């Protein structure tokens, strides 16, 4: 059996739930009182995919503007990026687009991208149209998932790469 090391970076605006998504995925728990990430947090998770032993190193970055300048340090060395937005905040969706531009400009296109619309349990407060999000994801060649760290919807046994 072969094993693969993969590096993943999670990007997005502040408060969209990047850490919650990662924590839900890695340890299947949810904490409603997580405090904002400072700098970046590092997680690892292991899984089997198609007979490969996969070890994923996850960089969960801080969304605050003052940490933006540090982001290249994390995405330059990554194989894949998860871009997270909050479906109840159009601003976070637009912000995510600027992340995509930055990634396209600064990486050689070998970075696999994937878009997460988090907080899909708050359907009644939705501001981001799902079709629009799907279109956008398709336009950058990324897959799109609607997820909820709270209810764990969309975060069970997801194949990220």
């Amino acid at each position, binding site marked *: 059996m072969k094993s693969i090391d993969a590096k993943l970076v999670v990007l997005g605006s502040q408060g969209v739930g990047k850490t919650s998504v990662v924590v839900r995925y890695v340890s299947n728990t949810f*904490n409603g009182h997580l*405090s904002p*990430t*400072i700098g970046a*947090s590092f997680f690892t998770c292991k899984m089997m995919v198609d007979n490969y032993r996969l070890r994923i190193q996850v960089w969960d970055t801080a969304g605050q503007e003052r940490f933006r300048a540090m982001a290249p340090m994390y995405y330059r060395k990554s194989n894949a990026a998860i871009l997270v937005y909050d479906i109840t905040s159009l601003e976070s969706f637009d912000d995510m687009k600027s992340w995509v531009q930055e990634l396209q400009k600064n990486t050689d296109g070998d970075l696999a991208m994937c878009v997460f619309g988090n907080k899909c349990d708050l359907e009644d407060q939705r501001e981001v149209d799902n079709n629009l999000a799907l279109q956008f994801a398709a336009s950058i060649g990324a897959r799109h998932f609607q997820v909820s760290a709270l209810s764990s919807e969309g975060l069970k046994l997801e194949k990220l790469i």
Partner: protein
Amino acid sequence: MAAEISNDSPSDEILQGSEPGASRNSMLLATDSYDDLASYLSDTNLSSDRDRLSSGSISEITHPTETESFDPKSVISEEVGPEVVENEINEQLENSLDVSASPVDEPAALATSDSDTVTERIGLDTPTSQLSELSTDHSQPEACTGNNSDEQEEEVEYVHSQEWRQHRKHVFILSQSGKPIYSRHGDEDRLVTLMGVMQALVSVIGDGQDLLRCITAGSHKMVFLIRENLVLVAAARSIESMPQLLLQLTYVYNQVLSVLTLSQLSRIFKQRRNYDLRRLLTGAEKFFDNLLNTMDRDPCFFLGAVRCLPLESSMRDTIAQSIAQNAKVKDLVFAILIADNQLITLVRMKKYFLHPLDLHLIFNLVSASESFKAAESWTPICLPKFDSGGYLHAHISYMDEECRSCLLLLTVDRDVFFTLSECKEKIRERLVKYKCLAAIAESVDQNGYKTSQVGIPELRHFLYKSRSAAQFSCPEYEAPYHTADQRDRLFGLYQFLHHRIHSSSRPLKILFHVGSHETLLGWVTSGFELYAVFGPLVTKSAAINSVNKLLKWIKKEEDRFFILNSPTF
């Protein structure tokens, strides 16, 4: 009388260098933040005239009772009977509890009484502008487009609300152009006008080549700290002295630097004077909140000293060795292990020392953020006393499942996360193997030591600071100081005692103060500071005898309470 005092005075019993906790080789810089502040207050950059004006008025305003009995020759002060201060403390406690009894309408006083002078002076300086225009100009340089009179009314109403006014201490940060950045209580967006007034006061006084430092209005003090880019204001109804409040503002200012660095802050405001700094500080509010709350109950700030977790010295040496041997990484400056806001050990690069103020900010970073408990983190942090111009990169991780002890590895190299992560794992293995984590857990759970262990029945509580080590020790808070109210009152007494002894107009060496609830003895030498609290009926000679016993006891325990050596990589 004089002879009696010198007989009683224990000061010749202890030679300097042999006091409890004396450290010839401290890992912390032993310069006192409070002394730093005194030098700031007597800043010679000011013209002599300005200096006389400002410092003179401050000491007059803030210590009206002291000037009456001023005797420059006396270094030993004895106070029996009058309980002015204590009553004051009690009164303030009552005031803080009884909302309706709030004696001074603070925001209104600020707005009305001072606006008169502002109008006058502004009238002179800029004849075309009216105060009303000015305050809106200053307060809302950009974001005021949507602000109509309704909102302003609402804002005024908010400032007058009981809910907002009942807080004992407000702290504000605003930019030099008057933009709100932070308010301890309430939403700073609703305090735009108030901050505009503060900015106007500062700039009007500044125009006259003066520096606004303090305003007193009834029982309220408003203290201003003016820095290159920021204005910090504390408005308090408390026993704290003006220098103590100023020190707290200095901490808040340093917290801003710790998040942004001085160079970034200067660059931003150079590019755009009316930049909204909140954009860069989002998520950092909790650091300010936590810092201010801790400063209201932890004496480490006004003492300018660090508390160590009590541990057997052999155990502490093992921990330090485990860290020093397994973290031999180029450019690693400090390795710090802490638990429960107490220092376990600090290993440093040979030529660098840490200032207690910086260490307090590190404690604040760790205690204010839950996020470090979730995973290993890689965080930029600026330590203003170490280098205000740049970030250190901190690898932060908890050593145990219960998140008791937290290890920070601080480096200047931003690319060594994985190296440090490996170091951390090796360190953790060692700490488990030598049962260090168990010893730490035991000490944390024990919650320090009890006053009764000293064996002096009349002694209720004490703070002891070794000045050369910049460390302090104190017992657990037990009855009668086990309730939050009583603990606050005791904290106020310590602040009072500390302030009286360090008063710049009349510094003291020993102060014996008899109050209605307890007797206080403060004693400061070149080697240590001791603040002891006894029952109300203790005589002076009994208190001094007890203190001598106490010092012997601390000396005996010093290896456990203090870190006397200074391990390096």
